[in-house]
């Protein structure tokens, strides 16, 4: 029993901490979204609730909580009620394999700062879970029994499926280069080496663009579209269920940022810094802080792009996915394998 406890307790603590961080992150990303967009448009943004509007997410949450939860008569009820969970849960589960720091040593025992430290196929896990996230959109759209929702779901589904190829192929080079599917290994491979966004620039670009589409963010947020399909797949949702969709979307953004950081920006690494030197506890804490700072930058980037670029047309979206990113990812794969096979590049582990 003790053996189980020794495994489960630290894991439980880590899960709680990470969940807290991610959910708070989600809340404040929504605030950041509004603030940053306001600044970019020479406005002030929310500033009424709390100092600098810092309590705005709380107010928003309360509002969602007290709003009426409407279920349309034409909805397919069990699926309709389930769909928001299908969006939120995968987005949160993916965090179990992301290493967000080195490790903390307490009482002679070291605890690596990720939830599932034994997972050496972390990337595959990530891909498999994120491939399930699309069910939330499909189910939500279909079960609403509304033509706009259906169209939103159709768009979302085909978009995610199309861009999954780009994501997978661009990740392949990283995997081959570092020789492992484990995220920890990929992070370690960037320790003391140039980060992968330099060495895999083409793959990075493909991944960056594709991940925008995967998270349904502008300029690829075709599943919604005020002018033609209203709210898209979540048109009919309200109250807490809508909040779940909303949180899922932002959690997905955080996941995507974490992935970007882990795969291409060295994870918790900083150049010329060895976290081991900072002591058993501070090394882990600082590394985690660096990791979350990097995530914050990418979240800002997501917001920045959203309030800069207009939405693509649907045919443009498909053209970019299939005719540009897919060949580019293939070219990248060929280039990288060529470099490794014939010129001996890559990280040997």
């Amino acid at each position, binding site marked *: 029993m003790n053996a189980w406890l020794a495994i489960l307790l630290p894991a439980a603590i880590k899960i709680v901490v990470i969940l807290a961080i991610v959910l708070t992150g989600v809340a404040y990303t929504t605030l950041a979204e509004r603030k940053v967009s306001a600044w970019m448009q020479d406005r002030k943004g929310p500033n009424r609730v709390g100092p600098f509007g810092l309590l705005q997410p709380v107010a928003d949450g309360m509002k969602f909580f007290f709003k009426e939860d409407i279920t349309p008569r034409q909805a397919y009820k069990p*699926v309709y009620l389930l769909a928001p969970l299908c969006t939120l849960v995968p987005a949160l589960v993916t965090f179990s394999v992301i290493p967000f720091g080195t490790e903390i040593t307490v009482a002679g025992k070291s605890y690596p700062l990720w939830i599932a430290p034994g997972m050496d196929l972390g990337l*595959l896990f990530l*891909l*498999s879970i994120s*491939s*399930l996230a699309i069910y939330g959109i*499909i189910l939500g759209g*279909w079960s609403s029994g509304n033509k706009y929702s259906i169209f939103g779901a159709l768009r979302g589904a085909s978009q995610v499926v199309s861009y999954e190829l780009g994501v997978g192929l661009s990740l392949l080079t990283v995997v081959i280069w570092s020789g492992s*599917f484990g995220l920890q290994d990929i992070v370690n491979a960037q320790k003391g080496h140039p980060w992968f966004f330099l060495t895999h620039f083409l793959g990075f670009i493909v991944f960056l663009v594709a991940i925008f589409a995967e998270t349904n963010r502008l300029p690829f947020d075709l599943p919604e579209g005020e002018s033609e399909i209203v709210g898209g797949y979540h048109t009919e949702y309200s109250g807490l269920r809508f909040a779940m969709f909303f949180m899922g979307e932002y959690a997905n953004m955080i996941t995507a940022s974490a992935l970007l950081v882990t795969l291409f920006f060295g994870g918790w690494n900083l150049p010329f810094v060895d976290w081991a030197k900072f002591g058993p506890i501070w090394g882990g804490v600082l590394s985690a802080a660096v990791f979350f700072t990097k995530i914050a930058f990418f979240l800002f980037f997501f917001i920045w792009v959203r309030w800069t670029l207009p939405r693509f047309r649907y045919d443009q979206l498909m053209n970019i996915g299939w005719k540009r990113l897919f060949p580019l990812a293939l070219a990248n794969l060929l280039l990288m394998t060529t470099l490794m096979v014939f010129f001996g590049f890559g990280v040997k582990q």
Partner: protein
Amino acid sequence: MMLWIFFAVAFVAFLGALGLVFHSNPMVAGLCMAVAMVAQGCLYMLLHVPFLGFFQIIIYAGAVMVMAVFIIMAHGMAEQGQEVSLTQTVATYVAAVLFLVQALRAVWNAAPPAFTEVDRAFGSLQQFGNLLVEHYAVPFELASLVLLTAMVGAVVMARRIWE
């Protein structure tokens, strides 16, 4: 503990399969199939072949079933279930019962399961890669060729319909 988890997941897979067969709404049936696929993937993981499990989920649950559900949705079939005639129903149930009897008989007659120890490397990515690229390279490539042919054929046929 692991055994119980295994059975629980297997039961979920079973339920998913039942849902696929018995649910009248094609959309829900498709979703049940996706559930079965995911559960199956988990079973692979519990059997210490995690990457197979992940691929199962990515390819079948994440891609194939998404496409299937997509088509059901786009086709508008999701609104009403297909009318099924009585003969069809009866035939299905007869077939199912026959199959079940066979399966039960096979299980009944099977020798008690012999557990064999496998080394830790069993089912690892390396082992799998070695098998695929060294032992079964030719069948693997042949299979991909067949798939390619099918794909080209599908595109050609679809083009004819469009034009």
